[in-house]
């Protein structure tokens, strides 16, 4: 069997890489370039709103270098999880940018788009058929949850990529896809054993993340063979060692030994990691255990209201010594005022909270350290059915909080330091991840329609 050489451009399209590293990696004659472009890590906002983590300039810069490179070397470029969340607006954004680059650079290629958005009626039917299953810690999934979602995407496996490559696509831009599928698809087609293909893909999907000291995002490179793969970073300043490559299996995963993919499990229990130079690592023993039931992970995000935030700080020791009761009384006074401004029914239309920066902010109720600070920050958050209501409530809170009394001081006091005028900031829509489920499709391709364009 021939060796398959894989160039991973960077951990996330838009985060960048060194053009010199790309050039060095291309000299190793890769069979294709892969790059992931998304994650759920930045939170539910991106899938819900259709916005992206990086600016269009950032995506376009990376896209330009990669489209020129693939044209020059006549190799496929495979991009997954377009523009952070891989829903329709994200796919459309990357499509537009790719077409702009093609026009500006006079490039010609066959482009495939893999759509990952899921039809709500189809999902409701599957839910009633018992073909949608909850994963650990999943919120309840009902017909209403499906209908209320802003976007729902399926996480594609290798099959849609294999289909598009089989039809001669030079460039593939996919909606939501598993990070590994981007890199495992072509090796699968070329007969690389599944264990090797998936494990190499897992190491490659984060670009240079598996090097010993990643100073900035950059390319990575792997050689896939019949019974092992070698990871060998093309940046001369970077090196991998057995531990750094093995460690990458831990990153963002519940288990380093078992990575669940749509058609089975990557099993690394018996893997060995061996340094074959001062920078390259050989990995062998990776296995893939196929499972009977083919599943696709679903991700959904729903609008949960509109937020307004207020940031203030407190330095007065007299307020600090009774901060909890002061805040409790403040909230009661605000609730009364808000009910008077609207009606009692308004209570169902908003929520407010305050978090104390400098006291249990980061870890909340699990914070083991209880010390008192000489000053604290107060972050007030309001979420309401409309942005207007949210802002209106926040304005009431900021004014009440600014002068809210304590028994020890007589006369009008100013209790908060506001760093901004106005103190309230409209934070816009708040989204919520509303599913952690897998669906059992009739076929691996059914959820992912593919569209082709010749440029």
């Amino acid at each position: 069997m021939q060796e398959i050489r894989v160039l991973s451009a960077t951990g996330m399209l838009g985060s960048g890489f060194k053009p010199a590293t790309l050039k060095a990696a291309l000299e190793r004659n890769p069979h294709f370039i892969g790059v992931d472009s998304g994650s759920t890590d930045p939170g539910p906002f991106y899938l819900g709103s259709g916005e992206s983590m990086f600016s269009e300039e950032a995506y376009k810069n990376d896209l330009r270098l990669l489209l020129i490179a693939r044209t020059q070397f006549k190799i496929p470029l495979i991009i997954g999880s377009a523009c952070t969340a891989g829903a329709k607006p994200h796919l459309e954004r990357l499509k537009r940018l790719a077409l702009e680059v093609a026009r500006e650079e006079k490039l010609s290629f066959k482009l495939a788009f893999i759509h990952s958005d899921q039809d709500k009626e189809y999902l409701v039917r599957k839910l009633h058929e018992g073909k949608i299953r909850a994963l650990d810690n999943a919120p309840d999934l009902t017909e209403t949850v499906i209908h209320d979602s802003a976007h729902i995407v399926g996480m594609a496996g290798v099959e849609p990529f294999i289909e598009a490559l089989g039809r001669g696509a030079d460039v593939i831009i996919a909606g939501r896809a598993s990070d590994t599928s981007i890199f495992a698809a072509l090796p699968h087609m070329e007969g690389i054993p599944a264990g090797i293909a998936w494990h190499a893909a897992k190491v490659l999907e984060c670009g240079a993340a598996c090097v010993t000291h990643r100073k900035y995002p950059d390319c990575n490179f792997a050689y896939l063979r019949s019974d092992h793969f070698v990871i060998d970073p093309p940046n001369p300043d970077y090196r991998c060692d057995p531990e750094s490559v093995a460690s990458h299996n831990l990153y963002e995963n519940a288990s380093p030994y078992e990575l669940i993919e749509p058609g089975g499990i990557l099993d690394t229990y018996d893997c060995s990691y061996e340094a074959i130079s001062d920078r390259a690592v050989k990995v062998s023993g990776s296995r893939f255990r196929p499972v009977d039931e083919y599943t696709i992970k679903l991700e959904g995000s729903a609008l949960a209201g509109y937020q307004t935030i207020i940031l203030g700080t407190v330095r007065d020791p007299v307020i600090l010594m009774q901060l909890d009761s002061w805040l409790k009384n403040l909230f009661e006074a605000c609730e009364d005022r808000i009910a008077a401004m609207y009606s009692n029914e308004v209570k169902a239309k908003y929520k407010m909270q305050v978090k104390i920066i400098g006291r249990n902010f980061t870890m909340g109720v699990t914070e083991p350290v209880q010390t008192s600070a000489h000053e604290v920050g107060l972050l007030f958050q309001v979420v309401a059915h409309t942005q207007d209501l949210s802002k209106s409530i926040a304005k009431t809170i900021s004014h009440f909080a600014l002068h809210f009394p304590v028994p020890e001081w007589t006369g009008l006091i100013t209790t908060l330091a506001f760093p901004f005028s106005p103190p309230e900031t409209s934070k816009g829509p708040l989204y919520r991840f509303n599913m952690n489920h897998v669906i059992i499709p009739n076929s691996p391709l059914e959820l992912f329609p593919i569209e082709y364009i010749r440029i």
Partner: protein
Amino acid sequence: MKLWEVTKLIRSKNAGPFELTFDIFFVDQEKFECVKAANLINAQWVSRVYKLPADQVKIMFYPCARAIKVTIPRRVPSGDFLDSDVYGGQQHAPFVELPLPAGICSP
């Protein structure tokens, strides 16, 4: 001595929006083995510190990276109204400051 003094890295991070995972990488094989053998990082301790039932704590030993991995459910899904750590990247302090009892990993 505290746990961090025998490690190369202690970190926390989301494992998807509904789970939180901690990775503890030890400086060498010996430190990994002695902390593992002393059963310092166990489900009861994690359960007490992170205030959740012990049966929700998953602990794995990963010798090829000399690492211990702990995974727990997130109290609030990433980015939700009550969440204060979208990436889950700053939840690991109790592991950093876990005291190493005298005699464990001492030279």
